[in-house]
C-alpha cells in the first residue's frame, strides 16, 4: 500500500468487492422472492444447482444450507483470485531483479529465505485483501438480513479460508514465474498465459464433465486434468467429507511447499 500500484490495486479491489457483494445479495434476494420465501423450496433449488455443477450429491446437500450470497461471493472471489494474484505478485521478485534491489538482500539472506519470504509475504497480502473484501460482502449480507452472525463465523470464515488456500497455489505459480524473469512485464505476460492455460484446462474439463452428466443423467467424476486448475479444489474444500477436505488441503499446501523448495533451488542458481 506504499506504492501507487498498491493504492490503485486496493481501491479497485475494494470497489469490485462492493459491487460483487451487492450483486450477490441481489441474486439471493431475487432467488428468495422466486421461491416465495419458502425455505425448503429455496434450499432445494440451491442443492440442485450445486449438484449439477459439481456432480457431488453430498456436497450439494451440505452447501445448500450455506447463505447463497456468500457462496456466490466465494465463487466470484476465487474466480478473480488469479487476476489479483497476478497483479500483486508479477513484480514481487522480477521488479527487484530489474532494479537490482535484490542485491542488497542476497548478501545478507539465504536466497531460499528470500524466495520463501516473497511468496509467503505476498500470499499474506492477498489473504488480507481477501479478508477485507469478504468482510465487506459479509457486512452487506448481514445488513440485508440474509445471514446471521453465527453463519458469518462458520460459513464466512470457511469460505475465506477456501479462497486463501486456492490463492496460495496461484501465488506460488506467480512467484515462481516472477523469479524467472528480470523484466516485470515479461513476468506479467507469462503469468497471464500460464494462468489462462490452467483456466482453460479447468474449463474444458468442467464442460466435458457437465455435458456427459447431462447426456447420461449420471454424475461423472472430474477428469485428472481438471485438478491442474487450482480453483477446482473448491468443491473438495467445501465437502462435508473430511477426507476430501484434508486431501485438498494437502495437495494445495504441498504444492506451495514444493514450489518454495524448487523455486528456491532455481533462484539459488540464477545470476542476480
Amino acid at each position, binding site marked *: 500500500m506504499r506504492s501507487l500500484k498498491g493504492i490503485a490495486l486496493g481501491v479497485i479491489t475494494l470497489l469490485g468487492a462492493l459491487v460483487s457483494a451487492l450483486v450477490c445479495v441481489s441474486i439471493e434476494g431475487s432467488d428468495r422472492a422466486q421461491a416465495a420465501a419458502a425455505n425448503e423450496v429455496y434450499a432445494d433449488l440451491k442443492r440442485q444447482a450445486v449438484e449439477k455443477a459439481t456432480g457431488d450429491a453430498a456436497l450439494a446437500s451440505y452447501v445448500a444450507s450455506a447463505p447463497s450470497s456468500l457462496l456466490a461471493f466465494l465463487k466470484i472471489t476465487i474466480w478473480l483470485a488469479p487476476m489479483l494474484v497476478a497483479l500483486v505478485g508479477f513484480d514481487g521478485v522480477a521488479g*527487484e531483479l530489474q*532494479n537490482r534491489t535484490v*542485491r*542488497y538482500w542476497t548478501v*545478507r*539472506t539465504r*536466497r531460499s529465505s528470500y524466495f520463501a519470504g516473497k511468496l509467503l509475504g505476498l500470499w499474506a497480502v492477498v489473504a488480507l485483501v481477501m479478508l477485507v473484501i469478504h468482510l465487506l460482502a459479509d457486512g452487506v449480507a448481514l445488513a440485508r438480513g440474509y445471514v446471521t452472525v453465527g453463519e458469518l463465523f462458520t460459513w464466512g470464515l470457511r469460505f475465506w479460508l477456501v479462497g486463501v488456500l486456492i490463492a496460495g497455489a496461484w501465488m506460488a505459480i506467480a512467484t515462481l514465474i516472477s523469479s524467472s524473469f528480470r523484466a516485470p512485464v515479461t513476468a506479467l505476460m507469462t503469468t497471464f498465459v500460464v494462468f489462462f492455460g490452467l483456466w482453460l484446462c479447468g474449463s474444458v474439463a468442467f464442460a466435458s464433465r457437465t455435458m456427459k452428466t447431462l447426456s447420461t443423467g449420471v454424475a461423472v467424476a472430474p477428469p485428472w486434468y481438471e485438478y491442474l486448475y487450482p480453483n477446482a479444489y473448491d468443491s473438495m474444500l467445501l465437502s462435508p467429507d473430511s477426507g476430501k477436505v484434508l486431501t485438498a488441503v494437502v495437495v494445495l499446501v504441498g504444492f506451495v511447499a514444493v514450489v518454495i523448495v524448487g523455486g528456491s533451488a532455481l533462484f539459488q542458481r540464477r545470476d542476480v
Partner: protein
Amino acid sequence: MQAAAVRLDRVSKRFGPKTAVDGVTFSIDVGSVHGLIGPNGAGKTTIFSMLAGYLEPSAGIVEVLGLAPKTVDRLRARLGVLPQDALLPAGDTVGEFLVDMARLQDIPAVKAEGCARQALDEVTGKDWWGQRCGSLSHGMAKRVALAQAFLGEPEVVLLDEPTAGLDPRVAFEVRQLVAAKKGRCTIVVSSHNLQELESLCDGAVVLDRGRVVASGTMSELTAANEQVRMLVAPGTTRGTKSGQVPVQELRELPVVKSAEFDEERLEIAVLFERKQADAETVIGQVLSILLRNQVRISGVSKGRGLEQRVMDLT
C-alpha cells in the same frame, strides 16, 4: 590469521559464447585497500559480482575470507557490498532500510537502530532517517548504500564505482570516508577513476578483456619506487645553458640508471636504483641540478602515474 581476504584462482565466467572473465588469479591481503582497474568490458564488474555472490563462476574458485561468497550464513556479518546501480527499496524509509540490513547482519534488535544511525551519520546523512528511499537524490542514495555497506564494521567491503555520478564535493566526502576506513577492514574498489584509486589504494589488479594484465602494490604498478618524473615549462629544451635541461649531468648522478627528456611532452624521466635511494632523495638531487640550471619546473611526480600505466597496459 587469514592469509588472504579475497582469493580468485583460475576463475572464468562465460555468458553464452562470450567469455567475460578468463582464468583470473589474484589475492588481496587482509586489511589492504585494493583496486580493480580496467576499461569497459575488462571484467571488473563481473569479478565484483562473483565476489559478492551475485554471479556463479563458470570455472575456478572464488573465496572471501576463505569462504564461497554464497555462504551467506557465515558471511552476512563479515562482508559489506556497495553494488553499482542497485536501487534502494523505494517504499522503505532510510531508517527502516538500514535497521533491516543491520538485523539481517545478526546485529541484536536493541543495537540495530544505534548501528544504523551511526552508519548514516558517517555518510553525513543523519537528517534523512525518515525519508523514503525512493525520494532520495542520486548522491544521497549512493551515500545511504555506502552506509549499509559499512554497517556493523564488516571485515571485507566491496565497493563498485563508489563515486560514479556524484558531484565533486560528495565524491570527495566519499573518498574521505573510504580513506578513514583504511586499516579497519579490507576494501576492494572497482572504479574507472584512476586518480581516485591511486590515492586510495595500496594495490590494484589491472584487467583487460577478462584477463589480469598487471597486479601488485601501487608503487610496483606505478614504478614509484624506481622512477621520478618532472614536467618543465613550455619552450624548455635540452642543453647545458641556463634554462635548459642538462640531461647528461642528471645521468651522472650516482643513483641514476637513466635519464631522458621528452621535448614534446616536456617531461624528464629519471630511472634510479631503488636499493640505493628512495624517490624523495632522488627528487631532491634532480631538483637541485635543475634549479641550479634555472630550469622552470611545473610538476614533480613519483613513478609514471597509474593513469599512464593503465593506458600502456590496456
